[in-house]
């Protein structure tokens, strides 16, 4: 059951990752991209959690913690930069 669940979780996370990446790439505004980036980070946290379970090493969750922290910073920083920038959509 663990395997099946992890399989589903992995697939789901990758799916979310893929969709988010598609939005990341297709834009069209910077705002869209930074929104997508946030999703990317969250999906990656899911992947680390899945790895933590699959490997039996809880320490992969630490990765998730760090990722949540710095991912947040990335989102905020990028959003703020867009917020400050003069023009409209790229």
């Amino acid at each position, binding site marked *: 059951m663990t395997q099946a669940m992890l399989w589903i979780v992995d697939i789901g996370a990758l799916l979310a990752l893929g969709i988010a990446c598609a939005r990341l790439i297709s834009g069209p505004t910077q705002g869209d991209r930074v929104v997508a980036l946030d999703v990317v980070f969250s999906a990656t946290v899911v992947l680390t959690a899945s790895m933590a379970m699959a490997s039996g090493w809880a*320490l992969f969750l*630490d*990765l998730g*913690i*760090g990722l949540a*922290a*710095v991912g947040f*910073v*990335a989102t*905020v*920083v990028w959003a*703020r*930069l867009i*917020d*400050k*920038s*003069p023009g409209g959509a790229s």
Partner: protein
Amino acid sequence: MTPPTPPTPLTPRPLVLTTSARALYPIMLLISVWVLLRGHNQPGGGFIGGTIAVAATSLWAVAFGAKDALGRIPLGPVRLGAGGALLALSSGVLGPLVGRPFLTHLWVDLDLAVTTIPLSTVLPFDLGVYATVWASLGAICAHAIGLDEEAEA
């Protein structure tokens, strides 16, 4: 009570950002130090701790400006970076002082009444790595964020 100015589209410096940056900056630095300290046995260490501190600096830079963020790096980025490298170096020099090769780490168990704390030269080494990574990458990120600061200049 009449506000002094008419409604604005977007305030230039978001209150949410500055307030949360004030709160998160020390927390993130604490996390980074924690990651640094536990690095010898758990994931972490100087490099990773340093990069988390860099995230804190970036956050501060984006909230309060690059200059302010650089000013919050103790000693300033160049001196902290150089000092970190020198610290790492000096941790290696203790080895030769007791007749062991350079960069030989020494371990001493500090016997307090309650508990013994293992002290070692690994910590200053990793601390030096942490300091330099923070200072260097923090300077890069803060300066980069500062590239776009003309609105406030």
